[in-house]
């Protein structure tokens, strides 16, 4: 190093001291510069990565929808980032939207094992999650939810459906095909943009406008952007944007924005995708020794009682939901039968439970009587004092109107 280092201890004059002080301060430029460079890199990297939409031949909305329908990607693997922001409170079974349709289906299921797919699905309904998907043909699918130092995987290989929860070291096994109603297979879980897109396109009819809105880059691939907007008023759905891979027609990104604006309610997109054949070992699962395995049929009614919190609000047995309205304004009506089953905002028994529920909902009155409206950013639900539940991706006014009409 420089020679002055070794004679640092020699006494220096006044002038030397000042110069020395400056020289000392100058050295700190190095760490500061390192911090600056790092900050600049972190700040600017996304700006460069997101620049430039790809140039693709023009395509009509109809052609693009056909492209999605025809898309037959059998072999793929990738990483999907899902962010869900429904806005609290999380009402569990009342979230009956297209985005959480499978979630509420899951709620009706039984629970008894930490690895039971149904008990895991609610987790996807809020927050940001990373999911890995792999598929090789119809009967080889895998979906893994990445958790901190753990992973939850649902693997379908032929007729076997395995769910493995590495955090609790529990596995869940069932056979696909047998009484399918209660089964959750990887393809039933709406985790990939493709699943969401199919759900959204199912809803697309004359109440919907579908347009192609330019192009985008998703997970390093060129994609068209398909935008679906409800034509009706009264729905809380603002717009749905789907990025469709230009080559394969596979949806790569799905974004649902609410009519009220703000952040997306559901945003699911690939961050990495590959159309190569995944390794065969990906789909084989043998429960390790010492792992608690629950068979799909082992679950008894007794175990239903041990439902985790947040699932308690499931519909009582026997109540048959019916749907009124059409298109985006569909409202699910559920008669829970009898008054007082659901504590509503109007009841003033002063119990802590009803007080808590009151704080979550707004009480409303109308021709139908009194009730409480529970709101999320996408789904609203009205529970009337006589035990009827109206829920849908519609505004409060539409719910009250439906309740009045139903009276």
């Amino acid at each position, binding site marked *: *190093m420089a020679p002055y*280092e*070794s004679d*640092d*201890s020699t006494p220096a004059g006044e002038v030397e001291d000042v110069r*020395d002080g400056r*020289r*000392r301060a100058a*050295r*700190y430029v*190095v*760490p500061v510069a*390192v*911090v600056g460079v*790092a900050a600049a890199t972190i700040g600017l990297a996304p700006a460069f990565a997101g620049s430039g939409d790809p140039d693709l031949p023009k395509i009509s909305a109809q052609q693009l929808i056909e492209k999605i329908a025809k898309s037959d990607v059998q072999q793929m693997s990738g*990483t999907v980032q899902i962010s869900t922001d429904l806005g609290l409170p999380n009402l569990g079974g009342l979230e009956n939207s297209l985005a959480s349709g499978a979630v509420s289906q899951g709620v009706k299921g039984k629970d008894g094992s*930490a690895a039971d797919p149904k008990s895991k699905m609610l987790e996807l309904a809020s927050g940001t999650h990373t999911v*890995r998907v792999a598929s090789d043909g119809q009967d080889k699918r895998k979906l*893994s939810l*990445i*958790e*901190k*130092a*753990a*992973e939850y*995987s649902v*693997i379908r290989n032929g007729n076997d459906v*395995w769910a*493995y929860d*590495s*955090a*609790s*070291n*529990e596995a869940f096994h069932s056979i696909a095909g047998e009484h399918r109603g209660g089964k959750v297979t990887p393809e039933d879980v709406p985790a990939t943009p493709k699943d969401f897109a199919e759900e959204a396109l199912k809803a697309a009819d004359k109440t919907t406008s579908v347009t192609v809105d330019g192009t985008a880059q998703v997970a390093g691939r060129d994609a068209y952007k398909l935008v679906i907007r409800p034509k009706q008023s009264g729905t809380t759905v603002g717009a749905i944007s789907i990025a469709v891979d230009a080559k394969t027609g596979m949806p790569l990104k799905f974004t649902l924005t609410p009519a009220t604006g703000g952040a997306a309610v559901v945003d699911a997109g690939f961050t990495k995708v590959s159309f190569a054949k995944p*390794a065969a*070992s*990906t789909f*084989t*699962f*043998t*429960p*390790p*020794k*010492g*792992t*608690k395995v629950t068979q799909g049929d082992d679950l008894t009614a007794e175990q239903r009682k041990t439902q985790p919190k947040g699932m308690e609000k499931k519909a009582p047995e026997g109540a048959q939901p019916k749907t009124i309205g059409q298109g985006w304004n569909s409202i699910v009506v559920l008669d829970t039968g009898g008054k007082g089953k659901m504590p509503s905002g109007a009841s003033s028994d002063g119990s802590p439970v009803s007080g808590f529920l009151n704080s979550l909902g707004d009480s409303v009155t109308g021709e139908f009587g009194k009730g409480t409206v529970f709101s999320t950013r996408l789904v609203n639900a009205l529970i009337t004092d006589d035990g009827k539940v109206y829920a849908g991706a519609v505004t409060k006014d539409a719910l009250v109107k439906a309740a009045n009409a139903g009276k």
Partner: protein
Amino acid sequence: MSPVETAVTAQPPVVQKPNPLWTFGLLRSELVTTFRRWRTLALLAVLAAVPVLIGIAVKSQTNGGPGGGGHGADGGPAFITQVTNNGLFLVFTALAATLPFFLPMAIGVIAGDAIAGEANSGTLRYLLVAPAGRTRLLFAKYTATMAFCLVATLVVAISALAVGALLFPLGDLTTISGTRISFADGLGRALLIALVVAASLVGVAALGLFVSTLTNSGIAAMATTVGLVITVQILDQIPQLHALQPYFFSHYWLSFADLMRDPVYWDDLIHNLGLQALYAAVFGSAAWARFTAKDITA
């Protein structure tokens, strides 16, 4: 004074320009000093005891039958439920258990003591009498600390492997993604994980070294470094600091678990290594800026 320092000063100081090999001589003496200290050996012994404790606890808990693990990840350190399946998982559990506190504490002690300890015992000026230069001395100190990171991690891993092999079955293991890998592959991943864990401590080591250049009291430097480690980990738990947390050196520590996924999930691992390199660069250069311009009075 330890025999090593006398060894350093006893080197014939005939060369005016420092011989490049001189750095290695200095480094070797630093390594020997570090690893010969009783303090270091005691730290390593404590680290080696952690897997033994975990192994015995898991073994006695699950003697009644399989299962019995906690529900979810909050039941204990990561991978603890899998230990009964395969002894190799004890390596990962032990590393996950020691990484948040024991390992950084040991590093904090060694790094905090590096410069301040010498100043405290009055040996720093003798070290600087040798024509090695301050930058070289600092570099040798930092390298010795990083060597300790690696040795400490390997001590935990090897002790865990031995206990795991003794108490639990070994064999093919199931990754947390549910796929099966051979034992040799698992062993390779265990080694890789140990290296990643050692690399995760590079940031703390640099931070400790910088703190060590600020004071002449070894105890103060150690306490500050360990205190910083704890503070940062507490801050990492506060949801309101969400935006800052990706820049905390401990934020991605547990990402070593991603090596047990199949295929390996690299994103967080790369974040972690990048962050550690950044901390090493920032605090390493800050330590250099401070140490090379400092008045040595002890």
